[in-house]
């Protein structure tokens, strides 16, 4: 099990420097647990099973697993056909391929018919050093424009496990980013409860409020802890669901802090930062927003920690950015 569950490729699993626990292949494990009591759940991949943590499911339920070939359009539309016939398919590939190659299929074959397809998208944002062909840096912007599609960017192993189960109970299409391999535990499984469409205040603060999604929530929490030692009170609102967007929670959070920052593992335009700006402007909340995210260009290759530091996504760089605002 451990050997099969391990994600093998692309070298992004550099050794972590912190003391957080990890869970190996939280998505695959959660899917197996869920599928034991949910016979309608099936698994699919476009030949990237080894790299998207779904092999535990294949091993547990070989008759319910389909590799449709390196063919993302086919992956999404086969999933649509399964969903139309009473199954709940979880279809895995990389985010770049799901969104760039199969957009029409997600929009029309799945969302237009409100089908129960769950697309699980690996290598979100800047989590691979293999360069622009494999970095899904604009996927959230693309996916949030599709009517009726739920868009989720989980923070950690806890949230991936909970969200994997929660989306099975949501009748309709879902695009969920996948953190794969050895995934850190940031949120306490005993205390945290993922809910589709609900943002959660993970840390109270007065001076600066960080609205974050995905793995940037981990970085925001670390930065807030570091800055507390320097007398700065930093709050963190975790927005794991980009769509439907919890505008009420964001507006309330914004009103409670002096300065507002958004943080996402994604281009700074079109995703979380843009959603926060829309929300503030719609409500007439005049507050300067600093958006932490990737620039509007393709990102080079290199080691992931180095690239994340270069583009301001590490805990230390987030802390520096926040400190520079006040």
């Amino acid at each position: 099990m451990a050997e099969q569950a391990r994600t093998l490729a692309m070298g992004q699993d550099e050794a972590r420097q912190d003391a957080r626990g990890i869970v190996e292949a939280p998505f695959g494990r959660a899917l197996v647990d869920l599928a034991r009591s949910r016979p309608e759940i099936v698994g699919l991949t476009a030949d990237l099973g080894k790299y998207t943590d779904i092999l535990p499911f294949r091993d547990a339920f070989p008759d319910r697993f389909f590799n449709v070939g390196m063919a993302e359009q086919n992956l999404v539309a086969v999933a649509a056909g399964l969903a139309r016939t009473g199954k709940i398919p979880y279809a895995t590939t990389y985010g770049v391929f799901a969104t760039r190659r199969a957009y029409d299929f997600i929009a029309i074959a799945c969302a237009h018919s409100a089908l129960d397809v769950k697309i699980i998208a690996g290598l979100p944002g800047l989590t691979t050093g293999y360069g622009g062909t494999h970095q899904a840096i604009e996927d959230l912007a693309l996916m949030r424009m599709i009517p009726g599609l739920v868009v989720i960017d989980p923070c950690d192993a806890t949230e991936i496990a909970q969200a994997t189960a929660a989306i099975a109970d949501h009748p309709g299409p879902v695009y969920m980013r996948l953190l794969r391999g050895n995934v850190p535990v940031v949120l306490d499984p005993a205390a945290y409860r993922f809910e589709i469409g609900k943002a959660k205040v993970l840390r109270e603060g007065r001076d600066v409020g960080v609205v974050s999604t995905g793995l940037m929530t981990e970085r925001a929490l670390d930065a807030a802890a570091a800055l507390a030692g320097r007398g700065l009170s930093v709050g963190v609102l975790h927005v794991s669901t980009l769509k439907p967007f919890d505008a009420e929670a964001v507006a309330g959070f914004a009103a409670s802090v002096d300065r507002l920052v958004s943080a996402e593992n994604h281009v700074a335009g079109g995703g979380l930062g843009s959603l926060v700006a829309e929300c503030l402007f719609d409500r007439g909340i005049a507050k300067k927003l600093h958006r932490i995210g990737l620039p509007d260009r393709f990102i080079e290759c290199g080691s992931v920690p180095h690239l994340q530091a270069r583009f301001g996504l590490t805990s230390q760089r987030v802390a520096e950015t926040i400190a520079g605002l006040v």
Partner: protein
Amino acid sequence: MTSAGILAETGSPPLDARSKALRSTVVEAIVAAGRGHLGPAMSLIEIMRTLYDHVLRVRPEEPLWPERDRCILSKGHGCLALYAILADKGFFPLETLATFCGHDSILGGHPEFGIVPGVEASTGALGHGLSIGIGRALALRMRGSKARIFVVLGDGELNEGSVWEAAMAASKHKLDSLTAVVDYNKFQSYGPTSEVLELEPLADKWRSFGFAVSEADGHDVSDLRRALEKVPYRAGRPSVLICHTVKGKGVPDAESNADWHHKNKLTANELTTIRSVLGGG
């Protein structure tokens, strides 16, 4: 000489009253709406008629009957042929056809799942239907159902790479409950398929992708019936029936004329001629 020319020389049997009546229904819907794809619907009439009259196990009064055969019209722009036969079979009232493409009509310019009773997939973006059919076939096989899947594809649609992604996957998964039906009218939006993107050797292509292949005169109901009633052609393989058809069939000016692919406005003279040929109006 083009294949269409050969077929015109070989000749299909003359259209019978039912074929003419279904065509008439399509023409009157286009007249009422002032728009619609005439040519792509006309080449489909006998294919859809044969499927719904003789092949498919469906219940018009219970469109979502779990054990029904599924017919997916993947070339969604041919939807008027589907709407005409669905109305004829009683999936919805015949009068609904007069609302085609109107405000709040259930009958859009491309078929929509969940809105039109009897429509099994939202199509119009080409190259989706065969993959959707695979998903349905896999799910039905998992629950031990005997229901079959028929996916009607256009020839121009075969330009889409996703069709061939699906073809490989269908044979890999040994889906002999799945039959692709190709409306091979030899024309697509811009002109002849032989000029836009050559499909030949078409039967060999499907064969090489693992399908069991048969061919039929797509305007001869008895030939279509013979071919469709004996699927699967080989156990353990998906089937494809290549139907040789004429774009715009039954409407003299429209036959094999790409200009009629998406004919919006019929002149009074054209309409008079069509109605007289089809015996409608």
